[in-house]
């Protein structure tokens, strides 16, 4: 048996997100973005440091937290032989929601996201990635969570779907005051949606601030250049693993 090799995905990250704030995490593949989101969403346990989400310390408060938070990953898992309607109703049952109310809410969200109602009963496997991602967002919002964790919610989407999702998130924040933590490769998206942005590289948060503050700090005209100056790295466009 060979030696045990260690790979540190997160090397001492500290940050906070205020209620009602949208915080964008930017970083190349392997920077630790998804690991961070997975810890916050109780799918992984940390090996050091402290995490408090919506007043719950993790991992002790994970059961309570799961009922209050929505999460969307870059490649959402569904029962692909079932329809969006069936998938959402199943999730609603797991949350203990009343089926009729849950269905009404799910359909409302899907319509707001631009999904045509005639597709609600098609198999998910027949749908584009853009549509599937919209269904994943609707599922995360079934419980109207005060916190939404979004791991690259628009990666791989066509421009129209990307705009639909971004507009929906802006509207959601304005309407409900939802706190949003999102990771993205898309500088324009981070700048459009985020109050503050953190640059993550090699498991460390190397800079954070508003888009304007980061550009000023780096002496760069745009966020992409600021990222390169402050992290010494370029963002690539491939989907994260």
């Amino acid at each position: 048996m060979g030696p045990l090799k260690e790979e540190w995905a997160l090397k001492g990250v500290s940050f906070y997100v205020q209620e009602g704030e949208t915080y964008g995490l930017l970083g190349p593949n392997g920077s630790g973005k998804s690991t961070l989101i997975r810890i916050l969403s109780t799918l992984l346990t940390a090996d050091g440091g402290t995490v408090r989400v919506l007043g719950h310390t993790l991992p002790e408060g994970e059961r309570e937290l799961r009922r209050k938070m929505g999460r969307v990953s870059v490649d959402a898992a569904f029962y692909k032989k079932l329809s969006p309607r069936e998938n959402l109703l199943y999730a609603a049952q797991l949350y203990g929601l009343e089926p009729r109310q849950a269905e009404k809410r799910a359909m409302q969200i899907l319509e707001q996201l631009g999904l045509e109602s005639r597709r609600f009963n098609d198999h998910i496997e027949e749908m584009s990635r853009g549509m599937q991602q919209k269904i994943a967002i609707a599922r995360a919002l079934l419980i109207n969570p005060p916190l939404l964790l979004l791991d690259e919610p628009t990666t791989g989407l066509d421009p129209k779907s990307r705009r639909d999702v971004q507009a929906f998130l802006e509207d959601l924040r304005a309407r409900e005051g939802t706190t949003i933590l999102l990771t993205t490769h898309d500088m324009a998206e981070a700048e459009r949606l985020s109050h503050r942005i953190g640059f993550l590289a090699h498991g460390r948060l190397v800079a954070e601030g508003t888009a304007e503050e980061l550009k000023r700090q780096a002496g760069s005209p745009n966020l992409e250049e600021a990222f390169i100056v402050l992290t010494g790295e370029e963002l690539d466009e491939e989907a994260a693993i």
Partner: protein
Amino acid sequence: MLVLKPTQTRLAIEVSDLKKVFRKRDGLWALSRKSGP
């Protein structure tokens, strides 16, 4: 630029000195409960 309303000062997420390590042996992830990648 987006600006938060001054009344919104409570914290939804507080993370301090967060660390996570993944372990591999012979090219395979050494898994324990919720410790995998």
